[in-house]
């Protein structure tokens, strides 16, 4: 690690040193996270807009999202994130569209509200959406457009739902700020409005599951097979109506802790529904998760069904997993992805005998590294203080509990509820944990650690590969998936196996460089 840091100047050295930890289970493994990236350092981080529109809101299929700003941001977030959604009767699906006010110089100079209103008017004429969301990009905040007032106007004018998100790109230090802003507005304006009838008491929300590559569908399939009712998924393949009914569930399952924990907590406060950190990535992880959920619901039949389904699903993948494990055992991996995936995928890699030797988050907070116990000790800084935190009160009508307070408290004590332990507890001594891993460090760590696979995103994928290290994108799954639950594990195993064993790697070396004057028999030809 020092080898990497030593090449920095002193200011950068000091800063970056705090973002790196050599894991030692006997120590605190404190890490700096969710702080601003030093200018000029080639970070892989995105912005607040990407977190709000791109991650949290984007998957909502019937939300007509107008990006208010110049064209770029809308264009880049059009169809690129693989949050899949099915057509559904009576529910609009705008995922193949891209809407923007495409602000021009005059709008910047004279203000863009007028154009935004006109855009809404045109949207209503052409598409008749029932929900419009407005997401602002950088200049909007600076020129002072009041998008919230416009939203209010639209609601009155068209009798639709219209929600504004002030998610200008410069807010916060990464996508994380955008998640928070999206979470706040969904709690404020969406959750709790529904009145759908819930059919079983085993009713759950899946939070922080965006259905990338169909992960959410696979998770839902599994849960339904056991007997759960999925009330809402935040926000993969969801309609507004799904989200509005989230308060009807009896448990919230939190898959991606970072992007959605605000909602999980606010739902509990307001509606009494506790949340449980789950992990549907990896066979063992999925099994443990399923058992934990069953423990919460505490129903013998459900428990039996859980065991039966686990056995059956295991049976179907056993042979494949054994095969892939035989091909992958002993390989090493480095993971650097957005939020929780860098943690989750270590379980799946473990299943396959692959050791994770370096892991880091692009926009995680300290609790994703060190566990929620660290929250009281996290000091807010200028950047985080700029993001609004909202508070809610119990809803007198809709507040409901499934377990007794006693049971809940017991489960909380057991850290089964309202708890997330973070990544470091699952990492081995001597491995590395690096926050906001930048280009330079990526290059250096890859050279030093020589992992067999580097899991990352599109921006560093080819950097790694040019250097001879296989890289798979864990944001987009390289356009494959699903990777969740049992079947997903096989897909994942197949994909990395093919990457590692792809014959082209063996041609990287130019043969005439190693054997400049080769004589003799070639390809079955006769010698002279």
């Amino acid at each position, binding site marked *: 690690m020092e080898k990497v840091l030593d090449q920095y100047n002193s200011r950068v050295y000091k800063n970056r040193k705090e973002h790196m930890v050599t894991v030692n289970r006997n120590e605190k493994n404190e890490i700096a996270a969710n702080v601003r990236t030093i200018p000029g350092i080639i970070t892989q*981080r995105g912005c607040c807009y990407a977190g709000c529109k791109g991650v949290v809101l984007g998957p909502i299929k019937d939300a007509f999202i107008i990006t208010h700003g*110049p*064209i770029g941001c809308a264009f880049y977030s059009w169809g690129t994130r693989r949050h899949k959604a099915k057509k559904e009767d009576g529910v609009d699906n705008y995922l193949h*569209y891209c809407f923007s*006010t495409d602000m021009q*110089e005059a709008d910047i100079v004279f203000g863009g509200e007028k*154009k935004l209103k006109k855009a809404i008017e045109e949207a209503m004429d052409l598409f008749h959406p029932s929900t419009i969301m407005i997401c602002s990009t950088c200049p909007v905040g600076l020129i002072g457009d009041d998008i919230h007032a416009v939203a209010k106007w639209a609601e009155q004018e068209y009798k639709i739902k219209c929600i504004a998100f002030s998610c*200008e790109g410069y807010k916060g230090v990464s996508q994380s700020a955008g998640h928070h802003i999206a979470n706040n507005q969904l709690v404020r304006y969406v959750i709790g409005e529904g009145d759908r009838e819930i059919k079983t008491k085993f009713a759950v929300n899946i939070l922080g599951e965006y259905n990338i590559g169909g992960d959410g569908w696979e998770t839902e399939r599994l849960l339904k097979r056991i007997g759960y009712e999925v009330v809402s998924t935040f926000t993969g393949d969801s309609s507004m109506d799904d989200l509005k009914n989230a308060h009807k569930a009896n448990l919230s399952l939190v898959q991606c802790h970072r992007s959605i924990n605000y909602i999980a907590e606010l739902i509990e406060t307001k509606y009494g529904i506790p949340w449980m950190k789950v992990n549907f990535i990896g066979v063992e992880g999925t099994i443990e998760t399923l058992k934990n959920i069953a423990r919460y619901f505490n129903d013998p039949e459900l428990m039996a069904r859980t065991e039966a389904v686990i056995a059956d699903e295991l049976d179907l993948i056993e042979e494949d997993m054994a095969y892939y494990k035989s091909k992958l055992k002993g390989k090493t991996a480095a993971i650097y992805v957005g939020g929780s995936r860098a943690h989750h995928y270590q379980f799946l890699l473990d299943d396959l005998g692959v050791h994770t030797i370096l892991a880091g988050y692009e926009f995680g907070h300290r609790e994703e590294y060190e566990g929620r116990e660290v929250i009281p000790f996290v000091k807010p800084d200028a950047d985080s203080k700029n993001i609004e935190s909202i508070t809610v009160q119990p809803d007198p009508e809709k507040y409901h509990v499934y377990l007794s307070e006693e049971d809940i408290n017991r489960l909380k004590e057991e850290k089964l509820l309202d708890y997330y332990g973070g990544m470091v507890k699952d990492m081995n001594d001597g491995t590395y944990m690096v926050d906001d891993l930048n280009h330079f460090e990526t290059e250096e760590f890859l050279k030093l650690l020589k992992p067999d696979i580097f899991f990352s995103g599109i921006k560093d994928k080819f950097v790694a590969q040019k250097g001879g290290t296989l890289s798979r994108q864990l944001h987009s799954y390289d356009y494959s998936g699903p990777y969740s639950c049992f079947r997903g594990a096989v897909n994942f195993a197949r994909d990395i196996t093919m990457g590692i064993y792809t014959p082209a790697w063996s041609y990287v070396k130019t043969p005439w460089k190693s054997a400049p004057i080769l004589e003799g028999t070639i390809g079955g030809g006769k010698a002279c």
Partner: protein
Amino acid sequence: MLDYTKKEQYDRSALRVNPAKTCQPVGAMYAALGVHECMPHSHGSQGCCAFHRMFLTRHFKDPAMASSSSFTEGASVFGGGSNLKTAAKNIFDIYNPKIIAVHTTCLSETIGDDLNALIQGIDIPDGKYMVHTNTPSYKGSHVTGFSNMVASFINYLSVSSGAKNGKLAMIPGFVNPGDMREMKRLTKAMGISYTMLPDTSGVMDSPMTGKFEMYPQGGTTVEEIIGLGDSKLTLAIGKFASEAGAEALEKKCKVPYKTLPMPIGIGNTDKFIMELQSFTKDEVPYSIEEERGQLVDILIDIHPYTYNKKAAIFGDPDTVLGIAEFAMEMGMIPKYLVTGTPGEAFETAAEELFTKFGLSGCKAKAAGDLYELHQWMKEERVDLLIGGTHGKYIARAEDIPFVRAGFPIIDRYIHSYMPLVGYKGGMRLAELITNALMDRQDRDSTEEDFEMVM
């Protein structure tokens, strides 16, 4: 797919739906990647840089290295000067480029950062350079950004020493490395000494070597850019993407220039070759004449499959005009031409082409979008759609054959190595188009009409 797109015309003035352009900075970043040992730098919040790198990487399937000023809310209030200063120091320190090419974003433009002043205040190491261009995202498009960045390289660096160096300056337009290579091959075949700016070949199509190179072998060197001031002539390939750079060089160094259409198809490549010939005064080598004759031969051979076929073409203005003219040379009807990039010149040039080929009933629109194009296609169907990846939804919705050409293509591979320019590029494009049409004929034919010989 795209079920909410309606045939009926509707005049939008505010809502952009399914754009056919993106913002300036990504073009500036691409241009800067075509300079050797250059670090493109995005002066704004880091999401811009992330989006642009992501997008270029998706098109080229190669690393797109660039840095950012990583604005936070503070910088947005107080200006990005200190961010840029820190960034410059760190970039030179850590990544050691020869030159940093800064482009602005809508954020820094709205704040009003004075980049000239900021850069003057920065302590640039000896032998290193730092240049900038203004790329407000709320004006023009990625093509404008490309164009601006090229002009800024010239404005900052090119110097007229007073003695001409006999070289040709060439601005290749917003094209793939494969296209740049082809233009260079032709220019070399004509025996001409040239400098191409920018030149992303060797950078965005760099070979796998087992070693990552932050600055691969390709790209125009700073020395070459400086030397542009002594060029004999500039060829600006594509009015939209390249004329600004040529004008800058004329203004600064009195290098005359000519603007050529993108050399796609026979006529446009002819113009390119003739211009080279008028530069060198040497004979055009037979190898080029042969390629040309082969392409003509091919077009005559395939005409039964292309003649009167209607195409909708969208993308960047210079490319769309080039493909449209080639389509007309193939006897096709370029029914709809759409670019997201604003600029009346596009529509004027398109109308001139329609007139030249005696076509009526074709439409061309600058500052258009794919929603409108789709509406037109619903109103009167075409036989073929040509453009970047974003056309695939329309192609599927309308069940129309689709040829991927232009920028961006983010759902296919290898395209960036393969030229569309030059006679060779014409062969490729003709093959792509003919195959798309013939594959469709095969698909739609009854068993008894399924042809063995075509």
